[in-house]
């Protein structure tokens, strides 16, 4: 049964999903593709980012090309004002990022509410937290790239935050600024972090999907169109504008906050830096520890499925159907009549019994619920005399 979660929350989630099914059928229920939604927005971000990248100039002042100032801010301005559909692409890139954070948080919430984050799924939870942090940082670097006054404030705040860290602080600061002060090199570094780290997301996603048989990574086209429509609604209803161009000699103090990416800066502005780092690090560790094995193992022991070696014919059906890649087909020992033998990796097994259902030879069992016992119980129930 669902354990360790307020049951009311689980029931609420299931009721909402049931209602959604009633309206748009379970084939198109976005709740059943919650993990694929941020993935879809990631592709949108890659594509729109590629188009922006073609016209973006990562400098803060560039006197080489012309008498006019050409820098990051003016190139973004050019994309927005001069390029056909440039403002739309920029808006898509911005709002798809926001949408990605929202869908990631919804994904994490649903996974938590429906109790699907612990034990054999701990890798998915931990890599998910890491991916969220990476997405947040990639998004923040996107805000530096525009190079308006907000970018300048954010850059300076980040530098002071890195400065407050012991030992690794100076190194991080030098890495972040690509030198000791904000220069042209700083912006090219930001661009590198922004693009490089977003491709590193793919590596993180691979770890997120490992051990998942047939991961659901793309929603049906109908949902994609819906997601895109919502995005376009925001793009046209609330066009993106830059602030004033950043001037290194000025000291702007306030900026509009994007709550999806910039909430750490809100925190940074309201507490001192030591408290800030302690809060961020403790929060991250707590999030990562949510599926801590010892918290749940005692209450929910998993007894991994066991193969009956004398009965297994090596047909591979259980290994195809296992949702967690816990069954590996190995060469059968010498003298066997068959070529392969199923073996269970106990640390991956969820004891769901799908392999039992897949086996037509009664060769795999859950140790605490033998299928022979279930069948015997069914027979006894079916044959029993009426109780009245």
């Amino acid at each position, binding site marked *: 049964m669902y354990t360790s979660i307020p049951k009311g929350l689980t029931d609420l989630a299931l*009721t909402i999903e049931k209602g959604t099914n009633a309206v748009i059928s379970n084939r198109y229920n976005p709740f059943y593709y919650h993990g694929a939604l941020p993935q879809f927005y990631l592709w949108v971000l890659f594509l729109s980012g590629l188009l922006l990248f073609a016209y973006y100039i990562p400098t803060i002042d560039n006197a080489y090309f012309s008498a006019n100032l050409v820098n990051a801010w003016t190139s973004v301005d050019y994309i927005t004002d001069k390029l056909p559909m440039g403002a739309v692409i920029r808006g898509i890139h911005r709002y798809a990022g926001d949408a990605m954070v929202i869908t990631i948080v919804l994904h994490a919430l649903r996974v938590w509410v429906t109790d699907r984050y612990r034990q054999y799924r701990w890798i998915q939870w931990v890599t998910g937290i890491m991916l969220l942090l990476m997405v947040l940082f990639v998004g923040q670097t996107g805000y530096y790239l525009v190079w308006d006054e907000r970018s300048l404030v954010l850059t300076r705040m980040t530098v002071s935050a890195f400065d407050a860290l012991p030992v690794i602080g100076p190194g991080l600061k030098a890495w972040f600024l690509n030198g000791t002060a904000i220069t042209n090199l700083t912006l090219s570094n930001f661009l590198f972090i922004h693009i490089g780290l977003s491709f590193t997301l793919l590596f993180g996603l691979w770890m997120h999907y490992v051990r998942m048989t047939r991961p659901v990574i793309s929603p049906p086209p109908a949902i994609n169109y819906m997601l895109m429509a919502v995005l376009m609604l925001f793009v046209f209803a609330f066009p993106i504008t830059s602030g004033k161009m950043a001037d290194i000699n000025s000291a702007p103090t306030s900026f509009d906050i994007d709550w999806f990416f910039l909430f750490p800066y809100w925190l940074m502005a309201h507490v001192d830096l030591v408290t800030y780092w302690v809060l961020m690090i403790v929060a991250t560790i707590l999030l990562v520890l949510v599926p801590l094995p010892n918290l749940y193992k005692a209450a929910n022991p998993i007894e991994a499925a066991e193969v009956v070696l004398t009965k297994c014919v090596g047909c591979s059906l259980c290994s195809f159907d296992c949702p*967690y890649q816990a069954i590996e087909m190995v060469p059968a020992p010498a003298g066997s009549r068959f070529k392969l033998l199923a073996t269970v990796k106990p640390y991956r097994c969820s004891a769901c019994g799908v392999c*039992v259902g897949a086996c037509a030879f009664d060769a795999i069992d859950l140790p605490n619920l033998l299928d022979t016992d279930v069948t015997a119980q069914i*027979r006894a*129930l079916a*044959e029993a005399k009426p109780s009245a």
Partner: protein
Amino acid sequence: MPEQKVITLICERAADLDSVCTAQGEVKEIDGLHVVKLPCSGMIQPLMIEAAMKSGAAGVIVTGCQIGDCYYREGNRMIRERLLGQRPPGLKKTVDRRRVLALWLSRPQKDRFLAEAKEFVSFVRKLPVEPAAAAKPAAK
């Protein structure tokens, strides 16, 4: 034969029948409807359905969570495909498909289960004992 048994093979996370069952797993409202709980509907072997029929059950109700929402990711989809003959091992052709009902209900849908089960139980008990030809699969 009004007292012929009907067996329900149900995922323990699907429709929550605890409140309407006796301690022995018999549904109080419907006479002769027994519930066998499994960790996941994906664990149901087609052999179990055949065994129930052979031992004289009038019908079998297979219940999993809503398709798309399986705690173990794919269990309900798999038993559904097995019942429909799209995934091995499938149900034997000799099993009368009219006597198998598949319901995909999430935990709060107890009432829906009772309504569907009541209709199904009275339906299978009226069926002739020797079925003519196998009808279409009953899985929804």
